[in-house]
């Protein structure tokens, strides 16, 4: 027999007791048979019960037995009070689920190490830059010539890899009609070896595959893409696909797990950096991140200094060739930029940058909701503890120790927490992918690996334990410190219990206020951002990004446009370099009216066809639209912001402007129109000076130039513009197979994608605010209700003596409402203090705005009044006669 038999005994205590009893009884029988007096024989056993207990304790894991007994008892208690327990479990489940879900996201996005060898020794290089507003920021894009120098500088101490940004590309395994999209990363040939990755099939890229520009058309597929696109076909090795002008051969498939280095994006295929041949020798084309793997025993700081020295040396060279150096402090910054090595153990992605702070803040909000839920359940349990004071006192008087009582009450709390965790786990399983789906820009799905593994399980278990102690300990300590004499008399000091409850109410209100405060700031940020004027009505606009295999003459594009205009349901159509707010930007220096280009405030350019203004419904203030056969750079239309900067707000129509072309040559264009400001780029920035030029353009020698890509902008009469999508797509290519629509979206979706983060923050924080409010109101109701029950007798007497109802009302609510106000003030202080942590996520919103402060105050007060109504109503309607009679 062993610990197992003892544990087994703990779970079938009945049979063990029977066995012991039978053995002792047979002993007595034997004694009586041998002539002993039955009474004496029984007495000889002394304390029969005690003997049995002693024997029993030996054969049963005692602690386990008492735990089991407590669990059974606790379960009965929980079942007995269905409503309270249900409320406790649901509120905890919601909070635990939200917490687990938040952890899954934070873990997947920011914490989980890449599935490569020794992720701890991986770093990426970042450097400091000044943004448009002269604020410090960091960047991580590198050019290949510089990369070569960096690699040489730290040879022997660290391996340096170029890993490009994951970008979505069009490729085909067959004909052009079957173009499909995939995420691709360019990687240095030695990357896989350096990361310690292995092939599932075929081979991975090696250093030899990355030596000559354009000379290595080999690709490695991710396991995920192989499964998804080829169904795990093992004959995929040797197959070819075309992407851009290159034909690649698939040489291998990675093992499952590794999905690229950009957390949030799953890379489908990897090709050698040398295949980006146009960029290899270009010293101004930053297109990849520089990854560093430190050799064992090498100090990061040492490597960082060498890399910085090499980088700044190359910048010195570059700056020498600058003709127009721009502002002095910018040049200085450029030549002295700080360089840092940042851990890349969890991968590196723009999504991490964008959402890191948001996720941490949401995590804190969720934790606050969890605290509120805990305070709430603690209150429920404390209220119940009163009802159980007599039971506890009874247990103490028959010899139960304090530790034993503590265990009894904590066991019940643990049961609540376990049930809540299980429900919360289900909630988390559903909600984490839901949140990921919320941060999806159109046509660019965020795909996070969200496994429910030991990390998540461990977190959930730790959380359940922490929660049990948080909400269970205070009531348990209180219950176990019961003084039998006073409790059995029924006259314990009622105020001490209420003080704890009131403190918990104050804490709940403070946290609730904070959650509302932050949520309010996010909501009004989102509101302001979403309502930023864009300068044109975005509804019913379909955007067709279109590509051609080679430069096509303007005529071909015009034909396609004409065809689109004849489609039923199309109001008007036009061509542009790209849609407004697409995220693309074309900037150039402008000389006009005596002004010279401002390096810090570049002017936006956009090529548009005749009819574009009408299609976009951007009002023409003066002059005219472009005509057919007008070409860039001879003509230009400018916006108001341009007129303000270059012409002091006067009508510039009829004047000229100069732009720079290639090789610093200048071109003159005649301004033929002035239009209302329309938004070209981000919602967060002011509308910038913009020059619209004809889509139709000429090269430096004045010869008409073809184009290989553009965007058709179509305004439809249908409410849902995407209804026409397939018809429009077909019309573009019909008779012109050289034109292919690569992407269809709507202007509305494009604008919405600019507010994704704000929308997510606003939606989720509102959700948590609502949960917090609900929990806090339930908590308040519970405390008030309890205090009314406690004071029934007192209230009865007061009423009998002629107290008026508003007096009773005041008595019942004063304490609680003062706690509420107290909590609200603490919450407000916390909220104002928190502003600097959320500042970067806010848009035109300040913590000290009246609207921001008022909103949580009003909601919480309103909810409190609602929650207080039923108990107060009950207090006022106590019938003194029946109350006193029952006492």
């Amino acid at each position, binding site marked *: 027999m062993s610990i197992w038999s003892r544990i087994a005994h703990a779970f079938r205590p009945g049979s063990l007791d029977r066995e012991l009893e039978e053995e*002792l009884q047979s002993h007595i029988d034997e004694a009586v048979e041998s002539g002993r007096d039955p009474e004496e024989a029984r007495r000889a056993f002394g304390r029969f019960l005690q003997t049995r207990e002693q024997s029993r304790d030996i054969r049963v894991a005692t602690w386990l037995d008492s735990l089991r007994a407590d669990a059974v008892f606790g379960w009965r208690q929980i079942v007995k009070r269905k409503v309270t327990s249900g409320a406790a479990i649901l509120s905890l489940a919601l909070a635990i689920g939200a917490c687990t879900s938040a952890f899954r996201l934070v873990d997947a996005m920011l914490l989980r190490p890449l599935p490569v060898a020794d992720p701890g020794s991986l770093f990426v290089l970042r450097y400091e830059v000044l943004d448009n507003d002269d604020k410090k920021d960091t960047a991580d894009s590198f050019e290949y010539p510089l990369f070569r120098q960096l690699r040489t500088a730290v040879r022997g101490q660290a391996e340096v890899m170029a890993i490009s940004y994951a970008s979505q590309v069009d490729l085909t395994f067959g004909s052009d009609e079957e173009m499909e999209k995939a995420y691709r990363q360019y990687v240095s040939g030695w990357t896989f070896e350096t990361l310690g990755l292995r092939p599932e099939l075929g081979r991975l890229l090696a250093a030899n595959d990355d030596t000559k520009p354009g000379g290595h058309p080999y690709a490695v597929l991710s396991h995920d893409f192989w499964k998804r696109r080829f169904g795990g076909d093992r004959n995929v090795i040797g197959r070819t696909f075309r992407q851009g002008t290159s034909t690649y051969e698939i040489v291998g498939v990675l093992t499952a797990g590794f999905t690229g280095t950009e957390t949030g994006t799953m890379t489908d295929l990897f090709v050698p950096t040398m295949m980006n041949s146009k960029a290899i020798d270009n010293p101004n084309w930053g297109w990849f991140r520089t990854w560093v793997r430190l050799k064992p025993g090498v100090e990061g700081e040492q490597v960082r200094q060498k890399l910085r020295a090499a980088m700044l040396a190359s910048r010195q060279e570059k700056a020498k060739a600058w003709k127009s150096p721009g502002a002095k402090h910018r040049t200085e910054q450029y030549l002295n930029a700080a360089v840092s090595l940042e851990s890349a153990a969890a991968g590196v992605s723009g999504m991490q940058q964008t959402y890191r702070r948001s996720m941490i803040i949401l995590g804190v909000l969720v934790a606050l909701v969890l605290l509120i839920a805990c305070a709430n359940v603690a209150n429920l349990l404390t209220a119940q503890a009163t009802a159980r004071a007599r039971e506890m006192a009874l247990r103490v008087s028959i010899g139960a120790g304090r530790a034993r009582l503590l265990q009894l009450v904590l066991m019940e709390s643990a049961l609540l927490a376990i049930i809540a965790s299980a429900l919360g786990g289900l909630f988390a399983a559903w909600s984490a992918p839901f949140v990921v789906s919320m941060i999806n820009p159109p046509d660019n799905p965020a795909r996070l690996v969200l496994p429910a593994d030991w990390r998540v399980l461990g977190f959930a278990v730790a959380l359940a334990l922490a929660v049990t102690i948080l909400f269970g300990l205070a009531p348990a300590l209180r219950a176990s410190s019961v003084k039998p004499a006073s409790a059995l008399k029924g006259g314990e000091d009622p105020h001490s219990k209420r003080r704890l409850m009131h403190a918990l109410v104050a804490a709940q209100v403070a946290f609730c206020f904070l959650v509302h405060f932050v949520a309010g700031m996010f909501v009004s940020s989102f509101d302001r951002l979403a309502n930023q004027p864009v300068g044109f009505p975005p509804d019913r606009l379909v955007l067709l990004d279109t590509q051609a295999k080679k430069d096509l003459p303007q005529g071909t594009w015009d034909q396609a446009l004409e065809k689109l205009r004849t489609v039923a349901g199309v109001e008007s159509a036009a061509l542009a370099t790209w849609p407004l707010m697409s995220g693309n930007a074309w900037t150039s220096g402008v000389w006009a009216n005596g002004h010279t280009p401002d390096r810090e405030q570049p002017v936006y350019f956009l090529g548009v066809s005749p009819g574009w203004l009408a299609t976009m419904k951007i009002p023409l203030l003066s002059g005219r639209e472009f005509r057919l056969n007008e070409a860039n750079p001879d003509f230009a239309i400018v916006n108001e912001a341009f007129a303000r900067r270059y012409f002091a707000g006067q009508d510039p129509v009829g004047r000229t402007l100069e732009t720079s072309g290639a090789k610093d040559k200048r071109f003159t264009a005649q301004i033929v129109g002035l239009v209302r400001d329309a938004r070209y780029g981000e919602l967060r920035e002011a509308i910038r000076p913009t020059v619209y030029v004809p889509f139709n353009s000429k090269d430096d020698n004045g010869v008409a130039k073809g184009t290989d890509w553009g965007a058709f902008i179509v305004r439809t009469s249908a409410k849902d513009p995407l209804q026409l999508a397939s018809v429009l797509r077909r019309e573009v290519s019909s008779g012109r197979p050289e034109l292919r629509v690569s992407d269809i979206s709507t202007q509305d979706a494009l604008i919405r994608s600019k507010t994704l983060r704000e929308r997510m923050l606003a939606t989720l924080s509102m959700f948590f605010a609502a949960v917090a409010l609900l929990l806090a109101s339930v908590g308040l109701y519970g405390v008030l209700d309890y205090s009314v029950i406690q004071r029934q007798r007192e209230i009865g007497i007061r009423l009998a003596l002629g107290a008026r109802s508003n007096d009773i009302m005041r008595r019942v609510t004063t304490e609680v409402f003062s706690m509420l106000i107290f909590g609200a003030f603490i919450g407000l202080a916390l909220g104002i203090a928190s502003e600097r942590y959320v500042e970067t996520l806010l848009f035109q919103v300040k913590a000290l705005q009246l609207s921001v402060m008022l909103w949580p105050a009003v909601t919480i007060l309103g909810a409190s009044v609602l929650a207080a109504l039923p108990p107060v109503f009950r207090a006022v309607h106590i019938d003194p006669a029946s109350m006193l009679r029952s006492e």
Partner: protein
Amino acid sequence: MAKTDSLQGSLDLMVLKILSRRPNLHGYAIMTAIKEMSDEVLRVEEGSLYPALHRMEEAGWIKASWITKDTGRRARIYELTTTGKNQLSSEEARWQAVTAAVNQVLRMA
């Protein structure tokens, strides 16, 4: 009459020894055996015997089984295990050493 408790560990030793000679005794028989063999000098109390038996069973020195006696009554009988035999020899050796030492002290003092 001396209480066996006064001699630390002697109860376990006696039970093991008796069971090594006469296996398959039940509790009452073990108690009687100790009483008779010690000429009624040593008397084990039921309150000590059973917890001791169950402790030894738990330790794996003895094992128990239920039998039905001729009288039709069920009884729980005990026998030594291999571990119990080893335990007995080491306890016995220790007991001899201790009593010899105590005797020597009594002689020399």
